[in-house]
Structures are given as C-alpha cells and as structure tokens.
C-alpha cells in the first residue's frame, strides 16, 4: 500500500514536470523551447518505463518472482525499442 502511494507521488511529480516542459515547448520560441519540448517527450516516454521498473523492484521484494520476470521481459522490449531508435 505504501509503495503504491510513493509511486503515485512520483508520477504526480512527473506529471507536473511534463506539463511545465510541454508549456515551454509549445510557447517558448527558439532553442529553449525545442529543448523544453524534447524534455516533455522524454518524460512521457520515461514515466511508464519508470513505473514498470518500480513494479519489478516491488514484486521482487514481495518474492512474486513470476511477475517480476514478466516485468523484466517488458523492460527488455522497451530497451529493444530504445536501441532500435538509437541505431536508426
């Protein structure tokens, strides 16, 4: 229960940061706006990855091995996507 609350708080912070970066990307011209907009996209991609990583740690601690492995497999798929994006 405590872990869910902590994860909820982390995602709340991510939500606020992403919103701030999105506003910057949408309304600030030039390089600053571009960097801010890119940071917004990075945060949108990172938030679910962090969430899955959090769950894997949580389930490993609970000794829920099967789901910890499934979560790790999902992270592997996400890592493969990241690798393909970098290579291309």
């Amino acid at each position, binding site marked *: 229960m405590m872990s869910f609350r902590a994860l909820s708080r982390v995602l709340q912070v991510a939500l606020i940061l992403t919103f701030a970066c999105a506003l910057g990307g949408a309304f600030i011209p030039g390089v600053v706006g*571009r960097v801010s907009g890119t940071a917004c*996209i990075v945060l*949108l991609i990172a938030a679910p990855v962090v969430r899955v990583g959090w769950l894997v740690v949580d389930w490993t601690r609970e000794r829920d091995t099967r789901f910890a492995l499934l979560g790790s497999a999902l992270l592997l798929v996400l890592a493969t996507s990241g690798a393909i994006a970098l290579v291309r």
Partner: protein
Amino acid sequence: MNPVALAFAAFVTAAIGTLGGLGGAILLVPLLVLSGMEAKYAAPLGLVSVAAGSLAAAPHQLTARVVNQRLGVATEIAASSAALIGALVSGLIGQSVLAVLLGVVALVAAFAGARRKGVRNLPDSSLSVDDVGETPGTLAGVYPLGDGFVPYRANRLPLGLLGMGMAGLISGLSGVGGGWVKTPTASEVMHVPVKVAAATSTFTVGVTAAVGLLVYESQGRIVISDAALVAAAGLIGGTVGVRLQHVLPPPLVRRGLSAILAVIGVLLIVRR
C-alpha cells in the same frame, strides 16, 4: 490545423478518451487527418496524446487502487512487441491505406463501445476495504464498486494476449493507441470488470505509446512544438477526464463516443 484548434482538439479528445476508457487518440488522429494533416505526422501526435492521458490518470487511479498492474504488465509484453513491429513498418504504408485503416479502426471501435456490457461481477459482502487491490502471484483482485467490494479474476489469457497483440500492432501502425481494443478485450474476453479493465488499459497504453514514440522519434516524425502543445492539452484533458469518470455514467459516455467514432470512420473511408 492552427495551434488553438490543435490544443482544443487534444484537450477534448483526451478528456473524452480518458472518460470512456478508450484513449483519446482514436478521436484525435482521425480528426487531424480530416483537417488535412498527413497521417504519418498525425500518428505521433496521437501517441503523445495517449501518453499524456495515461500519465495524467496514473496518480488518481493508483490511489483508487482500481488498476491491476500484474494484468497490465502480463498483457503489455504482447502489445508492446507488436507496437514495435507496427511502428517500424508504418512509414512504408501509403496515405490512402492508412486513412482506410483508421476509418475501419474507428468503425470497429464504435461497434465495440456500443455493444459493451455493464457490470458482470457482483459485490461480495464478506470483503472489506482492506481486500481492495491485486492478489500477489495471480491475475485476480478486488475493486470497490459503490458501497461494496467486487472480486474478479482474469480468464482466457491466451485469447486475451492475442487481442492485446492486435491492439499493439494497430497502435504502432496508426498511432491511435490501443485502449479501444484493450479495454473490450480485458472486459469481454478476459472477464475483467469494465472499471478495472479501463484503468488497466489507461496504464498500459502509456507503455505502448512509449514504444511507438521512440521509433517515431528515430524516424524524425515528431514535430516538437505541435507535440508539446498536444501534450500540455492532453495532460489537462486527461486530468479532467479521470475526475469526470466518477460523475457521468460510463454507458452514456460510451454510446456518445461510439456515435462520434462512427461518423469519423465513415468520413475517413469516404474522403480518402
């Protein structure tokens, strides 16, 4: 589409999408295509909208403990793998084909939303608020419904994984997100309560969108200023939508959404 109209469309579609548990991109991408934007640029904006809606809903849904994250992770492996393949080949598909695909997707979503049923699982009086949440090691759990607490268990996992894989493939190909397939698959095929299915889909579409966005970024298809505008509006829309979920009856929302989707689907196919 001008920036004000784009922001308004992203806000409204994210709010309606989160409200109905289908994701906003299924409305946003066809609207952008109808307004004259090329489908290959509209698709990444759709995924930005999906990711924003998912992030906006997450804190509230986690606190309410209606998300089954074990179910989400188990089924998302199929969806994300298929989304990766779909996003990789999406650039090879022509405008006309993608427009027809989106039209068919919208019509199927309209049908799925219209035929979805209400409550299948009933409250168990022996359960209390302490039982709410997931059951470790299983795809089962308990969720609150009104004053009662409802136990559930996901069934027919292989068929469910097939549906989730299809949702991921369509998401990667078209950028419309997969919530409109995932929610009915979890609800109607796997017999997970609609409320849990919708919340779990809202979590997993964020993961699927992340995969698609990584690939689109590598293909240079994300226009940062437009994406940032859609993200800002989508975050507000998603926050409003998840709050409204508690006020409006879901069947009413789904019927309204189905009617809009049917119109968009027909227009896309006719005007390609």
